[in-house]
């Protein structure tokens, strides 16, 4: 296994907020940091602040299960996630930081005839979009990932699976720190412990934010606050079709290398990979109720562990070391909202729900384009807020049953 990257003492400055910026990004998570980086790198916009209520990269980018893939069903989703995956493929080099991006393959198991049809359909759709995808029979699943239980004698036997070999995982903290370091180097101010408490408007135009560290004027304001997006948007009277839910994850103790790829099963519902350090990292679905509490109900953990043990009998004696939750922002069609708002110069990036980590570079890239140009890039144009009144939803939930 790879050696961890040696850390310099400081990866970024810790500046005092200036009174004014060209762009203020609210939220220094993965997406906010990536947005700051691409604003500076691609668009030469460096008079930028990324404000963070807590500490840098302490929210969902620190709490996710790091799965990276682009095998989405619909063209719009496939395009934006594939753009992101292509950025991942060059990211360690671009950011000069080994983010431990490992294309070990993402295997989506299927357990019913309906699943088989949906899986084959998705493989074909992906190929038409130029995305690598393969259909595996149960025997081929066993050959690719020998510890999966493909016996017909279980409650939901494995009937095959889809494989995206270019999918994989990365070290989430390194990703955030790498973006932060490069953004900081180019002059972007990363300001922690700076909570936005309101917005200053001039008519229908946003001209600044109010914070616990005083007002900050801004040419443009870009919201990037995941689970807290509706809280922020409500400060300018903007209603978002977003609900905040806990999404739980867990890790086992450190184990010898035992699992060679990412395995996901929507039907019995668990996804699991083995981190570079050796722990098994698992997740499943959201808790059903709205919450900002960063914790969920134990039965959700119990169910995903039951699924994991059925799929991987070898895991039955592994111990859970830690469970936690992040607060995910779920849109009605399970697709992100990324673009303009009815408030002039106010931009929104939210709704990534349970699948935001994989989108980090792609989301930052198109959001920076949208902010710099005042209009969306072709890749995020379909993800506009207006789709909920035009009806042009991107229904990944219903169509693919895709877990994240």
């Amino acid at each position, binding site marked *: 296994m790879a050696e961890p990257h040696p850390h310099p003492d400081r990866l970024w400055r810790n500046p005092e907020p200036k009174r004014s910026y060209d762009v203020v990004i609210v939220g220094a998570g993965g997406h906010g940091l990536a947005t700051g980086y691409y604003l500076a790198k691609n668009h030469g916009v460096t008079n930028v602040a990324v404000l963070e209520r807590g500490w840098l990269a302490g929210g969902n980018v620190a709490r996710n299960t790091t799965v990276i893939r682009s095998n989405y069903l619909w063209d719009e989703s496939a395009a934006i996630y594939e753009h992101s995956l292509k950025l991942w493929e060059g990211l360690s080099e671009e950011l000069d930081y080994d983010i431990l991006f490992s294309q070990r393959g993402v295997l989506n198991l299927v357990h019913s005839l309906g699943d088989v049809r949906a899986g084959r359909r998705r493989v074909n759709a992906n190929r038409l979009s130029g995305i690598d995808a393969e259909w595996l029979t149960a025997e081929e699943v066993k050959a690719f990932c020998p510890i999966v239980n493909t016996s017909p004698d279980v409650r939901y036997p494995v009937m095959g699976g889809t494989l995206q070999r270019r999918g994989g995982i990365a070290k989430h903290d390194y990703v955030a720190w790498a973006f932060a370091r490069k953004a900081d180097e180019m002059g972007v101010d990363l300001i922690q412990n700076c909570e936005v408490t309101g917005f200053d408007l001039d008519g229908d135009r946003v001209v600044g934010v109010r914070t616990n560290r005083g007002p900050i004027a801004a040419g443009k304001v870009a919201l990037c606050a995941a689970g*807290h997006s*509706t*809280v922020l948007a409500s400060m300018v009277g903007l*209603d*978002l*079709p*977003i*609900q*905040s839910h806990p999404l739980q994850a867990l890790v086992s103790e450190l184990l010898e290398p035992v699992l060679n790829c990412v395995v996901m099963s929507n039907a019995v519902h668990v996804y699991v990979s083995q981190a570079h350090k050796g722990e098994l990292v698992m997740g499943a679905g959201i808790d*059903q*109720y*709205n*919450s*900002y*509490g960063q914790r969920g*109900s134990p*039965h959700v953990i119990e169910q995903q562990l039951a699924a994991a043990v059925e799929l991987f009998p070898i895991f039955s004696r592994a111990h859970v070391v830690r469970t936690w939750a992040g607060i995910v922002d779920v849109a*009605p069609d399970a697709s992100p909202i990324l673009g303009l708002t009815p408030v002039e110069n106010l931009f929104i990036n939210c709704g990534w729900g349970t699948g935001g980590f994989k989108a980090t570079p792609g989301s930052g890239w198109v959001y920076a384009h949208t902010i710099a140009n005042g209009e969306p890039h072709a890749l995020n144009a379909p993800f506009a807020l207006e789709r*909920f*009144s*035009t*009806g042009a939803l991107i229904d990944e939930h219903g169509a693919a049953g895709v877990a994240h």
Partner: protein
Amino acid sequence: MLIPCPWCGDREDIEFKYGGAAQIAYPTDPEAADDAAWARYVFVRPNPKGKMAERWVHTAGCRRWFSLVRDTVTHEITPGRPGGKA
């Protein structure tokens, strides 16, 4: 999390299905509602950080719907009236 069913008492939340925000009114004049108004009715729901009025149904018990007020940060619950208005 224990949910106080007005008829069965405190039960674990695995016995319930969540109904989301309570008190969502159907558009009073549906013919007159434009696309934006319909979008608000169909897709936008309260998502407060703090006290939230919400609907639950005791699917694994009495199967009846009820309302309560729950804090979305602490998960502390204030029971509602039996048969409370949706």
